[in-house]
């Protein structure tokens, strides 16, 4: 046997035996959640991974056991993971659907069907930028190809010629929904033509055919020829998940017929027929695998449980300490908020070749808000990458890139646009560090405008900071001055956590004193922007400026207002707010966003709890109206709290 044919046979058999063992373990109650087996589809993972090294990055879906094993994961780590043990590949955080072993290039499987397509393209982007000859590979089912991520991911991989393989395992059912029914064009490979890339259809139960097609595609990818879509026609001969009924949507006869086309049986026969292997050789491999899997199962059953105290570890990367903040140089002319972040970005891009920017019009044009002005000519098109209007796609690609060693920035222009990628942000980006138990980093900065103004109407004016701050794993930053913007932006650029950097549109051209040298401002450090003794007012971004005006007016009436700018919504510096409340006894929170479940409610809850005995009046909130943003100036002005409403609220609070 050649090493190649031995790998193919052995790997398929390892997957089969492990899966059958897991099915038994599921029946015995050793597996606590879902268990999606790969029985019948072994040839695909095996044929593709035969041409990958551990530097190549594999991404897959809920049916990922086979990909993990073919990529080199020991069966013990897989079994222990499904048993929920600490020695499992994801340290017990994932189970069947979330397998992570970045050490061998198994970058993760997901319970959502299509993000792997984008992440593999992102790995391809990292490889292209760093010129490493790695490839990114996505394994996904037919259920993913009718998802927008397929369209956006393949299109961008094609236009940027990313070294990526898209391997569709067409097992003909998305859970129970037949692909023939769900697809207007059920020929997946032919869809490649829509994106201008080669589309190849192979018999997914013929490991030699898969191997050959994959080899050609991988050679093409490594040599700069761009991505390939390979459709592997196959069938899973076990139910969607262990324990589920199987014959409501397909027949016993169909399943029996596909069992006859078992890829392992076929390859064994072919090896024997060609005289490439003897029965004895193959039996020896079978016996060795049986023993290995039996041993792995026994060890996994004995393996230790994870420590409950670690349940919230690795949500964020370890904190970085930063140097002292720079002192504003009064002799330097003031610069704008947008220019302040541009200074930080330019400086950091010069120092760190792994930083690149995705966005619409951020290349030659320099960004809608001049956020990348002048950078294209310095750093070129690969690092200042104009994108199609495919927010979900490029955010998902940025996720894959961040997982594989680069530091993407998504310049999304308006937060309303990036809401199209909400699932990528909260399901993938926010969770990746935790689910990989801190073995993956997520240095991804998403920046752009929020806030109402200029009659931008409802799709260019959102303030969604509260929604994102609800999600563990994200940092949400909202600076109110050019000085803070630069320091927080640089901190975000050096952070290993995903950061939403939200810039109020009405502040972009405001000016302030900003030190020329680089400096960082840590997240979670509020700033008391004005000291006072009667009322504490907490506000962010544009509202902070309105509160400052209100406070100046009230000073004449003898009302002394203390103002706290949290600067970051997540993490939230409740300590500074509570200390101020301790002094004043009164708290008003002014936030442009909607009231219900918002950051103002969150701050009020902290104050009512930890600051209860300091309260000398009810906690008050002033929020934007609970309505979409209207266009007409008279309507627009009616949905955010004006200065007069803020002064009235403060007066009212003093009289409570």
């Amino acid at each position, binding site marked *: 046997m050649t090493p190649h044919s031995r790998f193919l046979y052995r790997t398929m058999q390892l997957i089969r035996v492990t899966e059958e063992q897991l099915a038994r373990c599921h029946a015995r109650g050793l597996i606590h959640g879902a268990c999606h087996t790969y029985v019948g589809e072994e040839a695909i993972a095996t044929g593709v991974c035969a041409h990958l090294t551990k530097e190549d990055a594999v991404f897959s879906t809920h049916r990922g056991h086979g990909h993990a094993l073919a990529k080199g994961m020991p069966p013990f780590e897989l079994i222990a993971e499904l048993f929920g043990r600490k020695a499992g590949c994801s340290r017990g955080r994932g189970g069947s659907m979330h397998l992570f072993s970045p050490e061998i290039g198994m970058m993760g499987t997901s319970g959502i069907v299509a993000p792997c397509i984008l992440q593999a393209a992102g790995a391809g982007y990292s490889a292209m930028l760093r010129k490493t000859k790695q490839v990114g590979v996505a394994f996904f089912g037919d259920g993913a190809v009718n998802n927008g991520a397929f369209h956006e991911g393949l299109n961008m991989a094609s236009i940027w010629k990313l070294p990526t393989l898209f391997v569709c395992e067409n097992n003909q059912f998305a859970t129970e929904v037949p692909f023939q029914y769900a697809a207007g064009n059920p020929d997946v490979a032919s869809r490649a033509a829509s994106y201008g890339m080669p589309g190849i259809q192979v018999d997914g139960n013929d490991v030699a055919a898969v191997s050959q097609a994959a080899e050609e595609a991988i050679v093409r990818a490594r040599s700069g020829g761009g991505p390939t879509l390979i459709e592997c026609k196959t069938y899973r001969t076990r139910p969607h998940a262990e324990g589920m009924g199987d014959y409501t949507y397909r027949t016993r006869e169909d399943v029996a017929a596909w069992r006859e086309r078992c890829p392992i049986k076929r390859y064994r026969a072919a090896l024997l027929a060609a005289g490439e292997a003897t029965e004895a050789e193959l039996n020896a491999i079978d016996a060795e695998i049986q023993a290995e899997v039996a041993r792995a199962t026994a060890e996994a059953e004995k393996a230790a449980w994870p420590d409950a105290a670690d349940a919230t570890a690795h949500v964020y990367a370890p904190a970085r300490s930063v140097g002292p903040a720079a002192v504003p140089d009064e002799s330097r002319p003031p610069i704008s908020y947008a220019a302040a972040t541009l200074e930080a970005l330019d400086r950091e891009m010069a120092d760190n070749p792994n930083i690149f920017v995705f966005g619409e019009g951020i290349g030659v044009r320099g960004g809608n808000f001049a956020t990348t002005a002048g950078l294209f000519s310095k750093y070129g098109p690969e690092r200042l990458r104009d994108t199609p209007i495919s927010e979900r796609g490029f955010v998902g690609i940025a996720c894959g890139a961040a997982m594989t060693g680069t530091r993407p920035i998504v310049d999304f222009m308006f937060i309303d646009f990036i809401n199209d990628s909400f699932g990528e942000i909260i399901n993938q980006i926010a969770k990746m560090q935790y689910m990989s138990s801190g073995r993956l980093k997520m240095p991804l900065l998403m920046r752009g405008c929020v806030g109402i103004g200029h009659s931008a109407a409802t799709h260019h004016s959102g303030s969604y900071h509260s929604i994102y701050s609800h999600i563990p794993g994200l940092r949400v930053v909202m600076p109110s001055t050019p000085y803070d913007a630069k320091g927080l932006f640089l901190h975000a650029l050096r952070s290993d956590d995903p950061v939403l950097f939200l810039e109020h549109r009405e502040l972009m051209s405001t000016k302030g004193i900003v030190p020329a040298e680089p400096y960082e401002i840590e997240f979670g450090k509020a700033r008391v922007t004005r000291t006072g003794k009667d009322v504490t007012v907490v506000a962010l971004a544009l509202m902070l400026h309105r509160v400052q005006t209100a406070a100046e007016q009230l000073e004449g009436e003898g009302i002394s207002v203390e103002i706290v700018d949290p600067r970051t919504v997540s993490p939230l510096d409740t300590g500074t707010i509570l200390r101020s409340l301790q002094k004043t*006894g009164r708290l008003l929170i002014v936030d442009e966003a909607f009231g219900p479940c918002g950051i103002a409610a969150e701050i009020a809850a902290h104050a009512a709890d930890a600051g*209860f*005995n*300091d*309260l*000398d*009046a009810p906690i008050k909130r002033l929020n934007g109206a609970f309505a979409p943003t209207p266009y007409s100036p008279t309507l627009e002005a009616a949905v955010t709290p004006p200065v007069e409403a803020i002064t009235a609220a403060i007066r009212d609070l003093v*009289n*409570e």
Partner: protein
Amino acid sequence: MPIAITVPRLGWSMEEGTFSAWLKQHGESVEPGEMLFAIESDKVTMDVEALDGGVLYVPADAPQPGERVVPGQLLGYLLAAGEAAPDGRVAVTPRARRVARELDVDLKSLQGTGKGGRIRERDVRGAAPKKPQQPVAQPLRRTIAARMMRSTQNTAPVTLMRRVDATSMAAMREQDKQISYTAIMVKLAAQALEQHPLLASRWEDDSIVAPSGTHIGIAVDTEHGLIVPVIRDADQLSITQIAARLRQLVQAAHARQLKPEDVDGGVFTITNLGAYGVEAFTPILNYPETAVLGMGAVQWEPVALGNGHLVTRQQITLSLTFDHRVLDGAPAARFLQTLAEVMTTALRSGPHA
């Protein structure tokens, strides 16, 4: 005035009914003409409209939906904005409650100034007995306090007092008013310390550390508090030189311009309260020094001579506090004895010696 909301009589025959529901919520504001609550008699269910406006206040013990009620029974109140509820409950802010606890103020005695008569922090503070403000002590005062405590806690002080003849000292001062009693005593103490170095040494980690030189500190009273500048190598200076140096140091002390080297390294301290008529006192050791010499007032006194005659002489009381850990009473007394001797002998050489 709170407006009472009561159960109406729905028709002549109604003796009892069932309260169905509020159509407004507690705390909600109600306009006249709005439907306020629903009530059920034997015959009909009726929504009852509000005749007045206000904020609906439903007492905790008011009838619950489904309860039997009789005409005229109280259901709740309509309050004007900010009006207190009529059922005697007084609202108090959590902060006011806390402050009342801290200042021991009885909340029942207070009239609140907040909305609806709510008691606020200012109401509690206004009712609390006024305590005089105690300003935090100045930094120098706090330093002195800490040093005095350290001295009394870490030493074993004993004070010896002795009257000595000050005639020569007074005579020297009479000749040159620039020379103070303190300056003279610095010189005399320096000479006496040569014979009794134990009094200039210090106790450190169970051993006795010899003095680095005869550096004598002088307690100086300034408007900010006590400060002790040091005359270095006093044994090598003449009285005139000591007096000049002392004047410099005192001036600098008052101007708060002493440098660290002006106050560091003392091995023995002299403190003089004689100018205020004090005769004897028990000075506190200038830790970690071993001895401090207190000077009383120089006074004319009758002295009985050995031959039975009575003469008047100028006398001074010296108060020597020493650390009993370093030396015992007798050697300390011998130091005083030496001092008494040099007070008569040494001064014969004049102020320039």
